């Protein structure tokens, strides 16, 4: 999401630069009684004089503004996974990269006997683990995996270690 913000910001900033310069140039050009250079502002002016607030074209523009505003707010407030998880408070603020933590938990999970593969998604409060096993009987695997990953998570010194939630898919599940 931070990347999306950067891209949107760069595009909007560029639009603001170009738009600001164009408006200034158009004002100067109009001052010399010349026709518009790039922006057809005389057409826009005529249209704004003729059309009422209740007409369809202005309404569509207003709807567009609201949609664009909502998209921008969604980008800011959508619940996103953290890029890093804070460690316990200390003299120097420290955190652990979320992606590296996910990969470390995958490695830890696949070291457990009976786990063939694993996928991990870490959020602020939870770490969801989906482990795949080649066994038919996987009843004991879930608690064992939870125990191993809980211990691993607890040893990292995180301020709020996410709760580990394990789901095991056995051969019979696939």
């Amino acid at each position, binding site marked *: 999401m931070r990347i999306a913000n950067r891209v949107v910001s760069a595009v909007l900033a560029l639009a603001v630069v170009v738009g*600001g310069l164009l408006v200034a140039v158009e004002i100067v050009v109009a001052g010399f009684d010349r026709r518009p250079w790039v922006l057809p502002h005389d057409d826009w002016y005529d249209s704004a004089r003729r059309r009422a*607030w209740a007409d369809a074209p202005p309404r569509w*523009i207003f709807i567009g503004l609201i949609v664009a505003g909502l*998209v921008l707010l969604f980008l800011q407030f959508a619940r996103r996974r953290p890029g890093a998880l804070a460690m316990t408070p200390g003299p120097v603020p*420290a955190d652990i*990269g979320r992606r590296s933590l996910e990969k470390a938990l995958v490695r830890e999970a696949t070291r457990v006997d009976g786990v063939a593969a694993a996928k991990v998604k870490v959020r602020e409060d939870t770490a969801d683990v989906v482990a795949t096993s080649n066994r038919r009987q996987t009843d004991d695997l879930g608690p064992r995996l939870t125990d191993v990953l809980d211990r691993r998570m607890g040893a990292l010194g995180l301020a709020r270690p996410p709760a580990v939630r394990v789901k095991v898919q056995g051969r019979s599940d696939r």
Partner: protein
Amino acid sequence: MRRGPDRLNSVVLTLLGLALIGAGAYGLARGFGAFEERRAQDPVMSEEVRSFVARNANWFWPVAAVVSLLVAWLGLRWLLAQFSTPTVNRLPVRADGPGHTELLSSGATTALARDIEEYQGVRSAHARLVGDHPVPEVGVTVDVHDDADVPEVRRRIEEHALARFRGALELSELRSTVHVRLAERAGRSVH
């Protein structure tokens, strides 16, 4: 820990989003007669606005041009902020005599990273100085092996490496952050 222009982007985009929603909502509400049915039939560019601009054309358009240039300049600052990395390249060193001595910050940060790489469980490290002198900020990124004692590595960085770094640069104050990445031991692979 938010880095670079992320906080600025967040604030600007939030304000812009609210402004767009406000403008759109006002336009729609007025068009649907929320402020009297008569006003919904007014032209978008009203007679009052046109006559105001016409009466004050001698100062209105110059001011509008200056405001447009100001907006363009702010946009340029915002655009450049997306690509700038406020890395400190040189640090002034305190000297008792005449003259002026500067230290290349890359030398200092490389030494700091080498210090950290000697700790048990650390695979690699790098450091970067950002911000303004006299209170720069050093950001340390350290890759540690899966079996490393992460809190212990952090403690050693805080109490040993960063303390030495601060002493070597004769900085009374040094803001620091540590970013840890968990890394696979060389030679292992994920199944």
